């Protein structure tokens, strides 16, 4: 990369950072320089070490090797004391964590000034602090109600509070960990506009992401991490999606393709099913799922798809209508019955409903089959069989973890999803219920999920794919139905629909004539 003569001064320099967790090397000899006024994207798959690197920078972790240096107010680079968030803040580094670090019982103002005045001073520095914040809000365009309790703010507003926290402390370097993971597309756009304005005022910004489109659109320079190593550091102008995807994953990326296939007999049929009241309801919905097809259910989150998923998972019972599985009506069903009947459930909130966080990877892999003779000996758990199963699943699904006895909670979202896939799909289910299966996953993990769902289809399973992502729906689904306010449009072959039509239906526009 060529640096122009008049390149602005370096604000932050990481050199030779190495960090190991037990047998896992999260970062290996990573160098990264950041200049004033520059937006750098740190791109990588889940588990590539992006967050670890930034946590070292902010003093949450101490690097095993390497050094962080920060420019002081006069521009000279000074080594940063490792392992101290306090030192990082003092040195002008502000961090916006992916999981917000805000006290929900305090107001936005209180969260921002927390820790900025000496603890034993008699009063909160209110007047001056407020004036400074008003000025910051005016300059940055980050407007929040300072006196609102955090618990009442939306996700986007909370993020603005987090950025204001950093700016209030006169941050010269701003680090954002997956800032768009929780934002709507519109909120993300606004955020990046703000970041560009802040960079223009001289702030150095690093943001972590695995989304190619936003990285290309919002950054000046892109550093790619793979398996803990920095594999590329390029001006954004020299990159395109294909190139970045390959750098991230380390090999050529091919999108999974759906081969035409004739659908078989009806596996699951719903007719006039109604359930729930209030916002998340389904009312009078019906469809038939056939063997060897993927039925996409499109819809904006909160239109009843969560209820539909709970119904088909056996967690909720319909108030009227009937559900037939392989021709048999299911009445008093619960989750265990649905598993026994061959319904594989890939839940929307994989951290909460997909795994038991405190249990090991191995235990999570067998948890739905714990009563089968395969994992029992004389009525006791057969730990050797369970461990063998874990070794096999970890290898065949490429679950990145220290081993079968690792605690599930500590794995990344993509790897947790692989546990869920291994557990549910290896049992050769006849029906697969996949709720938002790739939400929050990187390209590599998303590709894995798609491939596995297509494999299940190829094997003759019927797959219900609930998603908000039109790319995903059109790439995988044989037929697509749209759910809006609890009502489901009749499924239609994906070839007969176009994206604009489905988008309109998701927004509640009249369905019949919108179809192309």
């Amino acid at each position, binding site marked *: 990369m060529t640096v122009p003569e008049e390149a602005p001064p370096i604000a932050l320099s990481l050199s030779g950072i190495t960090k190991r967790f037990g047998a896992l090397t999260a970062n290996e000899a990573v160098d990264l320089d950041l200049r004033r006024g520059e937006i750098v994207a740190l791109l990588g798959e889940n588990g590539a070490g992006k967050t670890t690197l930034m946590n070292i920078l902010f003093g949450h972790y101490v690097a095993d090797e390497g050094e962080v240096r920060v420019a002081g107010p006069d521009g000279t680079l000074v080594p940063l004391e490792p392992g101290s968030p306090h030192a990082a803040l003092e040195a002008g580094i502000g961090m916006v964590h992916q999981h917000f670090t805000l006290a*929900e019982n305090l107001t936005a103002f209180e*969260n921002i000034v927390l820790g900025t005045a000496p603890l034993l001073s008699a009063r*909160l520095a209110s007047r001056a602090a407020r004036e400074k914040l008003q000025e910051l809000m005016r300059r940055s365009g980050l407007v929040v109600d300072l006196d609102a309790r955090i618990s009442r703010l939306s996700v986007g507003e909370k993020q603005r509070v987090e950025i204001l926290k950093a700016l209030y402390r006169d941050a010269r370097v701003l680090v954002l960990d997956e800032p768009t993971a929780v934002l709507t597309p519109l909120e993300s756009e606004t955020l990046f506009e703000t970041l560009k304005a802040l960079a223009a005022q001289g702030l150095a910004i690093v943001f972590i992401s695995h989304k190619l489109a936003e990285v290309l659109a919002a950054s000046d320079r892109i550093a790619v991490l793979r398996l803990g190593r920095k594999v590329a550091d390029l001006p954004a102008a020299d990159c395109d999606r294909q190139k970045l995807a390959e750098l991230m994953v380390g090999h050529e990326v091919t999108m999974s393709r759906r081969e035409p296939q004739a659908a078989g007999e009806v596996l699951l049929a719903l007719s006039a099913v109604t359930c729930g009241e209030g916002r998340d309801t389904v009312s009078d919905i019906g469809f038939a799922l056939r063997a060897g097809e993927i039925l996409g259910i499109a819809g904006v989150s909160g239109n009843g798809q969560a209820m539909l998923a709970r119904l088909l998972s056996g967690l909720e019972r319909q108030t009227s209508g009937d559900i037939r599985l392989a021709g048999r009506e299911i009445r008093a069903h619960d989750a265990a019955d649905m598993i026994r009947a061959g319904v594989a459930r890939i839940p929307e909130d994989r951290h909460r409903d997909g795994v038991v966080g405190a249990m090991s990877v191995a235990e999570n892999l067998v948890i739905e089959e714990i009563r089968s003779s395969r994992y029992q000996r004389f009525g006791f758990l057969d730990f050797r069989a369970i461990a063998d199963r874990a070794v096999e699943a970890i290898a065949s699904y490429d679950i990145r973890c220290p081993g079968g006895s690792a605690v599930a909670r500590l794995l990344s979202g993509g790897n947790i999803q692989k546990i869920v896939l291994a557990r549910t799909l290896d049992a050769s289910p006849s029906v697969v219920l996949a709720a938002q299966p790739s939400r929050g996953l990187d390209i590599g993990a998303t590709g894995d999920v798609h491939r596995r769902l297509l494999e299940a289809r190829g094997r003759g399973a019927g797959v219900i794919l609930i998603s908000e992502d039109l790319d995903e729906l059109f790439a995988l689904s044989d037929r697509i139905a749209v759910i809006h306010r609890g009502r489901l449009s009749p499924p239609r072959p994906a070839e007969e629909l176009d994206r604009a039509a489905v988008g309109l239906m998701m927004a509640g526009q009249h369905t019949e004539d919108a179809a192309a």
Partner: protein
Amino acid sequence: MSDILDILLAANFWAAALRIATPLIFGVLGALICERAGVLNLGIEGIFTAGAMAGWMAAWLGAGLWGGVLVAALAGAAFGLLHAILTVPLGLSQHVSGIGVTLFATSLSYYTYRTALPDVSSPPRIEAFQPLDIPILSDLPFLGPALFQQTALTFLALALVVAVGFVLYRTPLGLAIRAVGDNPSAVEAQGLSVMALRMGTVVAGSALMALGGAFLTMSAFDAFFFGMVNGRGWICIALTVFASWRPGKALIGALLFGAFDAFQVRLQTEVGAFVPGQIFLMLPYILSIAALVVVARKADYPRALLKPYFKGQR
């Protein structure tokens, strides 16, 4: 019916209510700040006992009444430090550690008392705090005897309600304490030490609890008896929830309990001939459970209460 009215309208009823409430005010303020920082302190019952014993013994040995109060606070702080070490840096179960501290502090207090006074049949007495005579206020009709003929410790307790409220809501320290009980990572991300904040708060809260014990031996009575704390610490834990972790409401809760207690004593003399006395003894506890059921169902617990925090953990 008119009997009940007579009880409620007597100045000495309200004086008794305030007197009974005093140790609870100290205790609930102490419990409240610990919990605001995210640490449940079930050591309270034992810390009450330790404060009662240590304060009384210091005064008996000639340290003076205020010397005794100071010693009581230090004793409470010491047991608070033990609880803080076990629960904050070591992250052990706050329930188990708290009950352990209660058992340890209680038995150590009894042991010390017995060792110092091996063969006394009746407990030695000290010259306890006397009701203050405040010019003008104490002489007001009704209000004077009802509210202003209390000992210095009662007025200290009332002043502490204001002081704790001020610190919690008006100072950077209080802000940090409230934050660390809700989301410790918010505190760490702002460069403060979660450990120092939590430990300091637990030590200070425990010192407050011990003052409640000291009130028993140095103001309410003038001697130390075994079993004299008699569940007051546990009542404070319940009152903390009742008070929604707010000092002002804590005062109201303590006064309410004091009023129930004073009321049952007086009711006993009215109808004690027909109803067994134990029923009346249960009354304040039954009423506090009932009050708790009504209030605590909506309680907004500090979100990080009972959750140990380890730096850098996901």
